[in-house]
């Protein structure tokens, strides 16, 4: 950058006069890059969600008996495996945060009164908190052996209860 001005190698830099074609550099940003990170998050989580949601839809709605197979024992079969627990946990958080940020953008676009925007976003953040806490608790505290008639391998031996 300005190493050419430091010919003595002393590390002491005089305030350099920029050459005419040096790229324009903004002053110190006065605000955070929050919205930039949000913009980037939408794109990165979007790509991950495409893979995870399509996988979710394929396994639950296309493979096997399709939508007819979905019942409690189907869920128990999936959530007795750490693979699907992790899959669904990551998908839950990514989808809810992606959706919250999208709806936040829409509220900012269409709600013109300050108070309306504020309360709509408070409702949005409350719903987000409920979904994330409830969803996470359900995935982690679910007992696949709750059904005494379960035929799952994990329920036939050990301390099923």
């Amino acid at each position, binding site marked *: 950058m300005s190493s050419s001005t430091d010919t003595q190698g002393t590390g002491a830099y005089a305030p350099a006069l920029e050459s005419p074609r040096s790229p324009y550099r903004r002053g110190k940003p006065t605000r955070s890059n929050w919205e930039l990170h949000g913009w980037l998050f939408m*794109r990165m989580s*979007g*790509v991950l*969600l*495409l893979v995870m*949601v*399509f996988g979710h*839809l394929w396994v639950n*709605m*296309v493979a096997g*008996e*399709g*939508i*007819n197979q*979905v*019942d*409690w*024992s189907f*869920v*128990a079969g999936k*959530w007795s495996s750490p693979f699907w627990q992790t899959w669904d946990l990551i998908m*839950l958080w990514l*989808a*809810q945060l992606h*959706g*919250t940020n*999208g*709806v936040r953008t*829409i509220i900012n676009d269409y709600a013109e009164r300050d108070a309306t925007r504020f309360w709509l976003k408070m409702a949005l953040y409350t*719903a987000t908190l409920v*979904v994330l806490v*409830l*969803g996470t*608790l*359900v995935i982690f*505290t*679910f007992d696949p052996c*709750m*059904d005494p008639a379960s035929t799952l391998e994990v329920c036939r031996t050990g301390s099923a209860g």
Partner: protein
Amino acid sequence: MATSLTPTAKDGPKRPVGTLYRGREGMWSWVAHRISGVAIFFFLFVHVLDTATVRISPEAYDAVIGQYKNPVMGVGELGLVGAVVFHALNGIRIILVDFWSKGTQHQRKLFWGVVVLFTLMMVPFAIRHLTFVFGH
């Protein structure tokens, strides 16, 4: 002030002509992206609540899920998957427009690519899903 959008006296009081964006692929894909996104958001809320009933009892969950197992909800599920597939494919288009150096140049072709891929995915899915829904 006369602009390119101002109808001339010769044309009569017509609506303003479209621009590269307005009324074209760019605008309508943006509208559809918002509508599909909001629809998926509200579904996700309901979906987490209904799935949470697995924690109550097998009977409670099967009763809730049983409410979905009818042709009306089956067709609704088709619409929901359609919203997800469109939102996903158009999201890839948005990423390409943002990050691919030729993205803006090809944005209209990308939109029609989304339409073609959407059709190629949704027709087989609709056949399989509706077979499950109505063949049960």
